[in-house]
């Protein structure tokens, strides 16, 4: 459909999270969590294992219903936007989300068709070769190694025009080259006016834009969030 990201306005408020609280089972993971994500920003979510990083990202995607608080995308609650919000969003979870019986090319073609974001085969092949899978386009992905499978999934980032990326531990199982490339992709996304929210133990250098750090504390502690504006 019409991709609203083509004319990004700098410093436009994209995602507005207020008083968010999430439980898992009977355990309160975090509460009263408020933060804003403007355009050209990278939000780095940190926290110990079990502090609710994945839960937060899934709530931000709308996959999980938060127990309290609101999440607004460009001023509208994401629940009301539903599919319209999904169109502006790219989520990358723990699972790669690619079919092992399909080739890399087929996987990416289906993903882009479902996003109603017509991409021709050449662009997909170009994306796959940029991610280092040249010559593997027509192999079923089950023949690929763990890291290569992850690369197929990451090729979606190259093709994506979504203004908001939510990436859950994208750096795991990647080799040095792929880590470099991913850092580059994230920097590009921020530079062209998009936002990225990710969890990782890796530092991500940016060429332009701001980094916001969000630390999820102990289950019962209030969440502390520090903002460090840094233009590298």
């Amino acid at each position, binding site marked *: 459909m019409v991709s609203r990201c083509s004319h990004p306005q700098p410093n436009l408020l994209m995602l507005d999270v207020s008083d968010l609280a999430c439980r*898992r089972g*009977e355990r*309160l993971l975090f509460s009263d969590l408020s933060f804003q994500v403007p355009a050209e920003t990278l939000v780095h979510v940190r926290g110990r294992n079990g502090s609710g990083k994945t839960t937060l990202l899934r709530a931000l995607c709308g996959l999980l219903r938060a127990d309290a608080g609101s999440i607004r995308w460009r001023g509208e609650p994401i629940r009301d936007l539903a599919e319209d919000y999904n169109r502006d969003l790219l989520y990358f979870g723990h699972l790669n989300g690619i079919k092992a019986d399909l080739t890399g090319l087929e996987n990416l073609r289906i993903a882009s068709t479902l996003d109603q974001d017509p991409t021709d085969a050449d662009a997909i092949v170009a994306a796959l070769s940029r991610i280092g899978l040249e010559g593997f386009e027509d192999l079923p992905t089950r023949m690929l190694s763990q890291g290569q499978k992850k690369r197929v999934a990451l090729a979606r980032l190259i093709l994506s025009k979504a203004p908001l990326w939510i990436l859950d531990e994208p750096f795991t199982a990647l080799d040095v080259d792929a880590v470099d490339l991913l850092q580059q992709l994230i920097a590009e996304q921020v530079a062209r006016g998009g936002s990225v929210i990710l969890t990782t133990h890796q530092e991500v250098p940016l060429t332009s834009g701001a980094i916001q750090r969000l630390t999820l504390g102990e289950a019962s502690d209030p969440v502390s969030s520090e903002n460090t504006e840094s233009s590298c």
Partner: protein
Amino acid sequence: MTINWFKFASPAAFYPIAGRLIPWFGRVALALVLIGLFWGFFLTADQLGGSNPQKEYYRIIYVHVPAAWMSMWLYLVLAGWSAIGLVFNTRLSFMMAKAVAPTGAIFTFLALWTGALWGRPSWGTYWDWDPRLTSELLLFFLYIGYIALHSAIDDTRRADRAAALLAIVGLVMVPVIFLSINCPDPNQCAALHQRSDPGSIHLSILIPMLTMTLGLWSYSFAAVFARLRTIILTREADHAWVSDVIAKEATA
């Protein structure tokens, strides 16, 4: 004047209210069931029907019919609370639905069992594929499905919502299922219209039957509230008010 119903929708507020209501519903249930049974067993006619009368054994009707009515009514209640829970996202509604399910299943089983006991002398068999018996059996399966799905899911919220959706799907399907059982041959559906309606039942039978129904209804309230209190305590275990309640009940 408006009452803020959402105030009572909080489990913490409802817990003491349910506690105070249980003894009252329990007493009313006991009184009405005793009256209904005494009336039905000793003060009504010895026989039912004309040319081929049913003898004393027909009196099981005073348990069978009220139990069957309650089993259907409670499924409506179950689906109703499920729908409210899904729409308004209120936790107490889901707890209510969960608390209703076992009582509904028990009444369904009771209706089936008494039906079998009644069928033996009157039809000469414990089980017959009579439309009403079959409907009741399928209702029992629906209850069991709800309970099984709820207990198979560890995450409380998913369990509540998934089972609620199942209850609503079941409710939508119930008319179609009952149609297919009552009218397996659409070429001659006349049988569907030859249903007995409460108006045709003699008053001397209807009144004790209704008394019993009210008794079982009160019992349902008491049982559901008792179960609900346990569910509330388990689910709210990490809240401060629960430890207060436990401390208070320990001293009392």
